[in-house]
């Protein structure tokens, strides 16, 4: 339980920071860099979510396939 909550907070923190960097870069007229930052942040978060999903499916398989 503890690990999942901290992971959720981590993802939320990444989202907030990336949004702030995006705003700062966009305000200074560097839209292309702002978009790259957003894309990279999205990819990082995606990797974390994929790892959690991997745990979930492993758990499901362990429960229903009796390995």
């Amino acid at each position, binding site marked *: 339980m503890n690990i999942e909550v*901290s992971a959720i907070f*981590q993802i939320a*923190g*990444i989202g907030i*920071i*990336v949004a*702030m*960097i995006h705003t*700062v*870069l966009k*305000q*200074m*007229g560097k839209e292309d860099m702002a978009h790259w930052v957003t894309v990279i*942040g999205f990819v*990082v978060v995606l990797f974390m979510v994929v790892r959690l999903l991997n745990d979930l499916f492993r758990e499901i398989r362990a429960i229903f396939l009796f390995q």
Partner: protein
Amino acid sequence: MVKLAGALLIMAAGTLIGFAQAARYAARPRQIRELIHALKRLETEISYGQTPLPEALARVGAALADPLRHIFLRAAARLAERRETTAEACWTGAVEAVWPDTAMRAGEKEALLRLGASLGCSDRPDQLKHVRLAMVHLEAEEAAAREEQRKYERMCRSLGVLGAALVVILMV
């Protein structure tokens, strides 16, 4: 405890990097302005004082602040050594040697090197014309540098802090 110390160190490092970048953006127009003042003094030395070039360069350099002072003093010293063939070679060598210590970019360097090509090898009105041309060039660069400072100084600071915070969150 160790984690907290590491996070604090990363935050401090990111913030310092951001502030150092911002300081570079702030230093560039200031140094260009100083360079323009120095060229004005050099113009006076050439037109009214009719000082020999090594002495004129040394006098101009003595009144300057630190990174720029070395350009003029070093050029004067190289001229006084009499090892190189032309004043242009001395000037170019001095500019190349000191340039990494300054916050200025290629445009200002180009203007200075072009000025060096005419220093000490033509008559007075011609040299004055070249000094004035370099000053006009530098003024244009200064306006561009001020614009860049206004745009990017604050961005660098906030980006340093935010990037450090991002790294800390990623590594928790």
